[in-house]
Structures are given as structure tokens and as C-alpha cells.
């Protein structure tokens, strides 16, 4: 597993699942919060990636 995006997605899915179960009660609220946290992980990674693009590695 060397795809950065795949690793990011797997990490986001696992972490958001745990956070949703810990921080919300009820199946519907957990699913909503889990999807929200997952999207936050992925979108923020993309935004940070684009912001870091001008900087030399």
C-alpha cells in the first residue's frame, strides 16, 4: 500500500468511525458525524497539499 491518497482515505475512514462512535449517540447521528469528520480529513489534506505546493520539497 504505497498510494498516499489510499493511505489517507483508509486513515480518515478508521479515525472518523472511531470518533463518531465515541462522540455521538444513535446510529443516524453517528453516521452523519462520521461522514462529516471523514470529509474534513480528506478535504483539509487536499487544501493543505495545494497550499504547500509552492514550497520546495
Amino acid at each position, binding site marked *: *500500500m*504505497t498510494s498516499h491518497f489510499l*493511505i489517507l482515505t*483508509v*486513515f480518515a475512514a*478508521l*479515525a472518523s*468511525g*472511531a470518533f463518531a*462512535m*465515541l462522540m455521538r*449517540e444513535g446510529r443516524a447521528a453517528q453516521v452523519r458525524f462520521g461522514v462529516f469528520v471523514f470529509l474534513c480529513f480528506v478535504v483539509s489534506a487536499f487544501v493543505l497539499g495545494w497550499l504547500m505546493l509552492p514550497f520546495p520539497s
Partner: protein
Amino acid sequence: MQERESISTTRVSAPTMAICVAAWLIPGLGHFMLRRQWRGLLFMVIVATMFVLGIHMDGELFRLDGSRPLTFLAGLAEMGVGLLYFLARLLQFGAGDVKAVTYEYGYTFCIVAGLLNMLIVLDAYDIATGRKE
């Protein structure tokens, strides 16, 4: 203030302590003991998957080295996984390969798995003491 004092002086009962220790040793077991089987099963799958993936990606299981504070903290966080950490060490997994592309991802997965399990232990504690339903 009065509430805070009453919380700080509350003694943890033996069953609650047993639930916390079980929850630490085997992720999700505390919730199983509290009859939250579905939640316990998901916690078990999430933490174990994250830890195993971390090892698979050449992540390192850090030792508690007092001379290197960050390594010490990373090792402490990884120990949060419980028996899986000690089992992996016993079977000589988690040596870590710094040349591997996924080395940093690997140990991050292992550290986060341990930290998540610590949160899960706290959740089991809250349920056992009636702070959370």
C-alpha cells in the same frame, strides 16, 4: 467546584477498574463487558486494523527510551493498543524500516491506534460510572 471535588474524591470500584484494564488490553472488550457488543466489535476492528496496517507499512514499535523524550512518548502512545503491542514485539514485528516509503505512515497508524484505544478506555470508564449512557 463542589461537583469537581466530589468527582476527584470518588473511588474507582473494582469492577470499573477491571473493565478499564480489559478495555486497554483488548480494544473493545470493555464495551463488550458493558453489553455494548456492537460498539465493542467496531472498536476492536478499527483499532486492530489500524495497528496491523501500521506494522504492515513498516511502521516502528518504539521502546520506552528515557533519553529520547519523543520516542518515549511515541512508545507510550503505541502501548495504548494493549496486548497487540506486546504480542507484536514478542513476534518481532515492528522493527521499522526507515528507508521504506511508508515508514512514517506506518508508525503514525500505530501511534494513533494506541491513542484511540486510550479514548475508548475513557469511554468505557464513563459508561461504567454512569456518566454516559
